[in-house]
């Protein structure tokens, strides 16, 4: 452990940028985007400096901590606002600030016609700051602050064009579904505090050995709920598709490269909990396996290029979650896939943004076609990302995805066979829908609207795409050369030693490539050999219809949660009106009723008052007489 006092600048710089841009208002319109980009870039520079420092130290001394201030101090419960930068966090810091800076640069051009570009950059900076706090917090409570911060930034950015009601609804949907996950995280923190008595990573790791498995399982499951919410995993995945309502750079940064991978970070960071709670770990694997197929199937039916990519993101994060659920052997591969995915998916999203930019913001792929000649740079960068996600050697996905497939097969027994098959199947479907995206967008005949004039995007847009494409090509090779990333992360995880091998790596790679080839071939036969309709055909099989509706996830949520929720609310409203308001009104009416009865006594006749007094006095005397007799 080393202490440092420069970690805070990582977060403080973008936060300062966001504050200035939000407070300065319209005055900052002229230079807001430059300030935002500079803040992000300088945060990246601090990250690089930290990495260089870290490389110069031994494994034990690599984690860096910084105590900011004493946050909560109640009895034995002490939480410091502290930062922790270790081998895992630095990967995220560089990904967030690096890809973040590229996307800032891209957005300068992409958002140049937008009236509110300054506000956009303010939110982007806010997101970077919150996401860095998420990965740098040294306890679950600090992480939680960043966790909520990225949720807020995501909400603000999805609804950036909130003058369109559908977009505002999409941002609300994302926010509400994320709340469910957030509740899981807060429950996990509460359980950890109640059973272990501390919420810091270090403290829980120390006490995990002598904590009951039940408590750890409960914490693990709650953490998984949190991860499913933020990372759009089954069953809380429905918001990601609608989140594409945000500007495309947002989709690239938040809903592909960084924020949605927070769940993977959470599970990897909590490795000491999941390793000691096999049930929770199994659930993680199941969630990952379901989502990777779920997302892939949705991806096959989407005509909206961004939604197809969103479904692909869901599916790829499913791979990461599955990898993280496989225990110590899988964490490093999950993180590796996360990093490579950060490059190629962000690159492809920026490519999609570039296509939309040239096509009057058209997102329907059936209205594209033959764009290869008009957008050569976009085509090449997108194509490199495409090869990377397919897992074609030697592109990035080949190293990261194959490692997850291999680890899944080697998980042992029936579980390994099921998981291996699922991941292979996922790779095949991925190849199919990504090839479909490529063919529909870049090849074939043009199916544009008449007013479309496709053109290549300006330098500020294609430069980030090119850099990300280089990352898509090389990151897998660089990270896996000599097990670089695995060895880098190794000190964080506890190894159990035994390494079972069901299938050798070469066989797994062969199988995966065969699946990919089949997927690509089917896509070619279906979309390249035949004419593609410019309007989505209606006479399709029931499976396509279901896939087009996101496998009924919205219908399911509406039927199971929304309608009963509305009915419950109705009942509560009626109960409120009848019982609670009724009681209040009843008291009033009782007072008024008894008043109107008693008012009759107030006749205004002195004689009747006198008679009443007389009767009362007589009764009183009679009573005294009876009692004292």
């Amino acid at each position, binding site marked *: 452990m080393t202490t440092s006092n420069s970690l805070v600048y990582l977060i403080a710089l973008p936060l300062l940028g966001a504050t200035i841009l939000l407070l300065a208002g319209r005055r900052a319109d002229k230079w807001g985007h430059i300030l935002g980009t500079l803040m992000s870039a300088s945060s990246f520079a601090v990250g690089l400096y930290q990495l260089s420092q870290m490389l110069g130290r031994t494994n034990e001394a690599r984690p860096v901590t910084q105590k900011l201030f004493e946050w909560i101090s109640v009895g034995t419960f002490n939480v410091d606002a502290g930062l922790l930068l270790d081998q895992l966090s630095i990967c995220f810091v560089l990904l967030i600030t690096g890809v973040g800076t590229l996307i800032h640069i891209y957005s300068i051009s992409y958002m140049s016609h937008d009236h509110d570009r300054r506000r956009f950059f303010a939110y982007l900076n806010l997101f970077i700051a919150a996401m860095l706090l998420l990965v740098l917090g040294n306890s679950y409570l600090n992480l939680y602050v960043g966790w909520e911060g990225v949720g807020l930034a995501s909400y603000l950015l999805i609804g950036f064009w909130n003058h369109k009601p559908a977009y505002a609804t999409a941002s609300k949907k994302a926010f509400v579904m994320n709340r469910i996950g957030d509740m899981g995280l807060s429950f996990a923190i509460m359980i950890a505090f109640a059973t272990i008595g501390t919420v810091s990573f270090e403290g829980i790791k120390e006490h995990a050995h002598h904590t009951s498995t039940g408590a750890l399982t409960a914490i693990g499951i709650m953490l998984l709920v949190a991860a499913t919410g933020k990372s759009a995993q089954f069953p809380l995945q429905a918001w990601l598709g609608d989140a594409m309502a945000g500007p495309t750079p947002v989709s690239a940064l938040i809903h592909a490269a960084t924020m949605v991978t927070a769940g993977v970070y959470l599970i990897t960071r909590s490795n000491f909990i999941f390793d000691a709670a096999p049930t929770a770990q199994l659930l993680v694997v199941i969630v990952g396996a379901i989502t990777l197929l779920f997302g892939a199937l949705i991806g096959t039916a989407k005509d909206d290029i961004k939604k197809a990519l969103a479904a692909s993101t869901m599916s790829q994060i499913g791979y990461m979650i599955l990898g993280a659920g496989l225990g110590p052997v899988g964490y490093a591969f999950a993180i590796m896939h996360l990093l490579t995915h950060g490059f190629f998916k962000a690159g492809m999203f920026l490519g999609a943004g570039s296509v939309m930019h040239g096509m009057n913001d058209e997102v329907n792929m059936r209205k594209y076609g033959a764009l290869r000649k008009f957008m050569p740079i976009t085509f090449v960068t997108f194509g490199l990302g495409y090869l990377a996600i397919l897992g074609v050697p030697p592109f990035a996905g080949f190293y990261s995805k194959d490692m997850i497939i291999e680890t899944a097969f080697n998980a042992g027994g029936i579980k390994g066979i099921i998981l291996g098959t699922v991941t292979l199947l996922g790779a095949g479907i991925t190849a199919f829908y990504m090839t479909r995206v490529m063919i529909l967008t870049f090849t074939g005949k043009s199916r544009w609207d008449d007013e479309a004039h496709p053109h290549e995007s300006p330098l500020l847009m294609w430069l980030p795409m090119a850099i990300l494409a280089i990352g898509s090509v090389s990151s897998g090779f660089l990270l896996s050369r000599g097990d670089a990333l695995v060895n880098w992360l190794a000190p964080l995880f506890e190894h159990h030693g035994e390494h079972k091998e069901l299938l050798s790596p070469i066989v797994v790679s062969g199988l995966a490539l065969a699946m990919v080839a089949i997927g690509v071939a089917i896509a070619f036969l279906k979309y390249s050999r035949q004419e593609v309709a410019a309007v989505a055909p209606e006479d399709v099989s029931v499976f396509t219809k279901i896939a087009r509706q996101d496998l009924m996830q919205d219908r399911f949520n509406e039927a199971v949660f929304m309608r009963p929720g509305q009915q419950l609310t109705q009942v509560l409203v009626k109960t409120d009106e009848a019982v609670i308001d009724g009681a209040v009104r009843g008291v009033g009416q009782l007072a008024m009723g008894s008043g109107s009865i008693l008012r009759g006594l107030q006749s205004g006749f002195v004689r009747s008052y*006198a008679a009443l007094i007389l009767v009362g006095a007589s009764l009183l005397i009679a009573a005294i007489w009876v009692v004292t007799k």
Partner: protein
Amino acid sequence: MDAANYLYLSALLFTIGAVGVVVRRNAIVVFMCIELMLNAANLAFVTFSRINGDLNGQVIAFFTMVVAACEVVVGLAIIVTIYRSRRSASVDDASLLKR
């Protein structure tokens, strides 16, 4: 003569006064009936003084007379004022607070 007879007379006078207050409308008559009730009480006090052989009852009778005198002063003033403003001495007419 038995002292209890004075008490019977006192009760009789008090009852007559009370009934008069309740049934008569004329404010002056009601007022006189109240005086009758006060004096019935006085008679009872004096009788008790006689029965018990001490002066307590007689002392209280003096207090009652003082109170009665004050009451006459205030009460008659009110009645005269009401009569002047309303041209009527009926207690049933004086119900302005009700209306």
